[in-house]
């Protein structure tokens, strides 16, 4: 980090935090603190929702995902527009008219208290774990840039986020997100332009795209169906529709954003903006990863992008043959790539096919060497299932981006993390206070009392997130880890809301037992079956709905006939 990088970094972060806090002044009642007094315009909500999703994980992990696996991850977002349309037509008006603080408050109006409590607890478990992963992501940045231990940086980022969230509430979170999206877009464009400019002069942008495609990095749509395959068009259209229905329809961290809208139309517009903009944005980020891959076809990358682990195994004798294999494969790939470009330009299809084969074979050699190095890490006391996917983009940024841009990219990563984490912690505090504390422990207290309780709950969940940070790195790619954790719980939550909106005859006890059955089946699959996580949401939802319907229509009516309860005034 050079002086200019520090200036850009500090200026960006301080201005974001101060602007957010400035816009949040007057958040001195519970509805202003948790729902911004329902005064937010659609564009602020839209950008806030987008910024929350485009957290540090997006930059760190998605680009790395594209580098090693191609762009097929974009298919995981194909269900987003479908889900948004369904939510805008059903959930948004229902929540707005019910005048609720949380999605789970609605479940009590529709079912009963125990269903609301179970849904709240499931949300707290799921989002609490995800919040840990979110806070952990930028610790990777600082550990690479500054050489600080990941644990210490996690604590530092966590403390900053908690302080900011406790003071600002949802209004500060939302307005700082708006500013962040500007910086995020700027950072994305700067990163892509830089990587293209850094390509050798003999390689044009068109050549780079061609080489990325020849290496299988531009596989945006894959049509083969496989239950074990995480990303294809079928899991994208079906599985991710359920995932996003759950995320935007049942997850308080998102629901709370559009509950702040000053009208139902503003809330709908904020979601539909995301339906239109999210997939192109994700495509763009993945494309940057593919271009970083092409850049490293001509500039030799380290065997592993996790420098600390690489430094450890480099001293070992067993590493030398790995390094030699890697260097040989790199040279072969570079030669094959240049020959492939020549053949492509000349229009010689036979030569191009031959060179493409050589190019892919050399790539396999590189992949094998990297796999052997990763095995060495594991065999010598490193973490099991070692993966350096999350380090690829940052390694490129810190080594090759010019002064100022490094600071900008790191500011984007840190600011996005602070926003995403603060939103999560804010929603966790909201559910804790509104759905549990106010409902079961302290009814009828003053507004000031609940405001104070919300601030204490925010502090608690911040500490909880920091405690669980680092757990995500054991799950491989962070972007996938976030979705895996969500998918373990989302199907059941979604099933419960499907029952609430679609099946008027279903009562509370049937929904409650259905959720328990859904969770049991999803966890059984997670531990004992190898099925892509995108299907967890579908399976969980179907089991919840099926179980509840079976109870409703098959069990003796008196057995599970729970009278609907009214929430306290």
């Amino acid at each position, binding site marked *: 980090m050079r002086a200019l990088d520090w200036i850009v970094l500090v200026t960006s972060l301080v201005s974001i935090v101060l602007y957010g806090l400035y816009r949040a002044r007057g958040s001195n009642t*519970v*509805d202003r603190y948790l*729902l911004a007094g*329902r005064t937010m315009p659609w564009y602020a909500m839209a950008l806030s929702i987008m910024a929350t999703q485009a957290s540090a994980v997006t930059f760190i992990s998605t680009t790395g995902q594209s580098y090693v696996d191609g762009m097929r991850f*974009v298919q995981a977002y*194909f269900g987003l*527009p*479908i889900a*948004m*349309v369904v939510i*805008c*037509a059903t959930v948004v*008006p229902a929540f*707005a*008219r019910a*005048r*609720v*603080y949380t999605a789970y408050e609605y479940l009590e109006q529709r079912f009963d208290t125990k269903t609301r409590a179970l849904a709240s607890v499931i949300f707290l478990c799921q989002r609490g774990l995800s919040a840990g992963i979110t806070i952990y992501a930028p610790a990777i940045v600082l550990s690479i840039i500054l050489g600080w231990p990941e644990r210490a940086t996690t604590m530092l980022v966590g403390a900053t986020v908690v302080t900011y969230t406790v003071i600002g509430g949802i209004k500060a979170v939302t307005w700082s997100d708006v500013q962040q999206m500007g910086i995020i877009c700027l950072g994305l464009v700067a990163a892509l332009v830089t990587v293209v400019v850094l390509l050798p002069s003999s390689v044009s942008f068109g050549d780079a*795209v*061609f080489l*990325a*495609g*020849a290496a299988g990095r*531009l*596989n*945006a*749509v*894959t*049509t083969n169906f496989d239950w074990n395959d995480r990303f294809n*068009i079928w899991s994208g259209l079906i599985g991710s529709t359920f995932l996003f229905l759950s995320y935007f329809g049942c997850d308080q961290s998102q629901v709370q954003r559009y509950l702040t*809208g*000053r*009208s*139902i*139309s503003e809330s*709908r*517009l904020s979601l*539909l903006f995301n*339906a*239109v903009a999210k*997939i*192109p944005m994700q*495509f763009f980020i993945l494309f940057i990863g593919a271009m970083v891959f092409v850049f490293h076809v001509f500039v030799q990358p380290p065997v592993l992008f996790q420098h600390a682990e690489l430094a450890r195994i480099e001293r070992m004798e067993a590493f030398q043959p790995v390094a030699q294999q890697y260097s040989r494969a790199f040279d072969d790939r570079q030669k094959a790539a240049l020959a492939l470009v020549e053949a492509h330009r000349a229009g010689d299809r036979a030569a191009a096919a031959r060179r493409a084969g050589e190019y892919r074979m050399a790539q396999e050699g590189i992949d094998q060497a990297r796999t052997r190095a990763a095995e060495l890490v594991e065999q010598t006391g490193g973490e099991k299932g070692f993966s350096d996917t999350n380090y690829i983009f940052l390694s490129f940024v810190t080594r090759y981006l010019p002064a100022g841009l490094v600071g900008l990219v790191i500011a984007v990563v840190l600011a996005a993390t602070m926003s995403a984490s603060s939103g999560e912690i804010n929603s966790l505090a909201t559910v804790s206070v509104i759905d549990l504390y*106010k409902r079961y422990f302290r009814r009828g*207290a*003053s*507004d000031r009392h*609940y405001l104070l309780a919300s601030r204490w709950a925010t502090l608690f969940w911040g500490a909880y997130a920091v405690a669980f940070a680092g757990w995500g790195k054991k799950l491989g790619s962070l972007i996938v880890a976030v979705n895996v954790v969500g998918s373990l719980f989302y199907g059941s939550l979604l099933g419960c809301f499907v029952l609430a909106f679609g099946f008027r005859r279903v009562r509370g006890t049937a929904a409650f037992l259905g959720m328990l059955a859904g969770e049991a089946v999803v966890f059984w699959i997670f531990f004992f079956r190898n099925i892509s996580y995108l299907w967890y949401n579908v399976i969980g939802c179907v089991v919840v709905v099926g179980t509840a319907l079976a109870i409703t229509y098959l069990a003796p009516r008196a057995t599970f006939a729970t009278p609907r309860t009214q929430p306290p*005034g």
Partner: protein
Amino acid sequence: MPGLPQVPDDPPPFLGTWRRIYVAVLIYLCVLIVVFYLFTRAYR
């Protein structure tokens, strides 16, 4: 703690009805998938 106020439900700012906007979003998704599929095939 006071209850939350009711918020209004205005018509959409364009295309007249929300149903038309939803259809437009779904058509957009179909176009996007076709474009990505052609992109994948072109560079396979």
